[in-house]
């Protein structure tokens, strides 16, 4: 079972497709969640997911806007897609019949 951040990372990488690399994934996660994503969390999670065999990373091309430095490119493989789908389905199943808006209204101040 994936963790929440692992799921976010896999989803962002799949959405970005061929353009998935460190900075782009980080920007995608920050834009969609509205939360700050630290570079430490990003790269250690990438390593963990790669060790689990859910994605593959390699050093890509350098670009001038990166000061001539290479990107760490990311590609989610079939096992990664399956793990993300499984996580999403589990969240969907467990959330069925629960309305968070209603709960917030009841327990809120």
């Amino acid at each position, binding site marked *: 079972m994936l963790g929440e951040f692992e799921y976010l990372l896999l989803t962002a990488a799949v959405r970005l497709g061929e353009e998935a690399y*460190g900075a782009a994934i980080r920007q995608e996660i920050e834009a969609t969640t509205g939360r700050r994503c630290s*570079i430490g969390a990003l*790269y250690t999670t990438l390593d963990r997911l790669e060790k689990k065999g859910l994605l593959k990373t390699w050093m890509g091309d350098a670009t001038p806007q*990166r000061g001539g430095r290479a*990107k*760490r490119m990311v590609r989610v493989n079939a096992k990664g897609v399956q793990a993300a789908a499984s996580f999403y389905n589990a969240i969907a199943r467990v959330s069925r019949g629960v309305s968070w808006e209603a709960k917030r209204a009841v327990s809120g101040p």
Partner: protein
Amino acid sequence: MNRPAWWLVEIVSRLLAPDEREAVNGDFAESGESGAQALLGALGLVARRQTALWREWRPWLALLGLVIPLGVLLSLVSRMMADGSAIYSWMYLNNWTWTYVTNAGARTDLISYAAEISLKFLALVCWSWTAGFLLGSLSRATVPVNVPVFCLALFLGELLRAPRYLGRWIILPRPLGHIDSVHGGVYSLAFYSLVFPLVVQMALVIFPSLWAVRQGLRLPTLTMVRRTILWSCVIATVAALGSENSVWWQFRTWNVRPNPAPFPHLPSLLPIALLGPIGYWLAVVSRKALVRIQGEQANDQHFS
């Protein structure tokens, strides 16, 4: 504020693996973060990497079994050599007279003492170099912890006078507390009891070992034969360092042999200290020569 922060980011990111450093610094440049934000990010990543690394048992084994003992041992040997040479330094430097040069007998003594001290200092430099080389080549990832701990072991040994406590447990050629000895006058001077040992340690231990850490980190891939030569030399040097200050030295140099027991005259282990750097030099220089020759042969074939 921004420029020093970026300079610090460069320094901190050197603690990461080369590919990761490249990717992370590129990400910082692309995302347009401030120097302070980038510094926090780099520090966070290094901290996470180190935390993951030190959950394993191997780095702890290397730290407790090699790094700290080597630091304490070098501190001990450095202190012994500084104390030993302090007497002659005081004799010649604090009481200099041209008679030491003009008188034939005094000149012979001066040359003999200078040669003896130089050989001991050279051995100390070589031992320090080999210890640093081991630290650098063991594991790149553990260097951020191992090197400061090694330096701390050296300084604590010196500052807390650990060699004197260790003298009670390890057999030493002579007790390391000279205040009551016949040379007490020399060691009662603050320079020879405090400053001189620190200068010796700084110049002959800290600098050579840190320099060797860099060489250990940049060690190229070697063939099995070269690797065997190099590591045999390194092991011999570390073994000599370990034994030179204990039983070996005591029986060799100190007059505690129960006479008339026929103890053999043991040779000095100081020359063995040279093996570590010589092994490195042989392995790396021969590899460079081979690469150059292969390159020239490839050029010749290309043009013929």
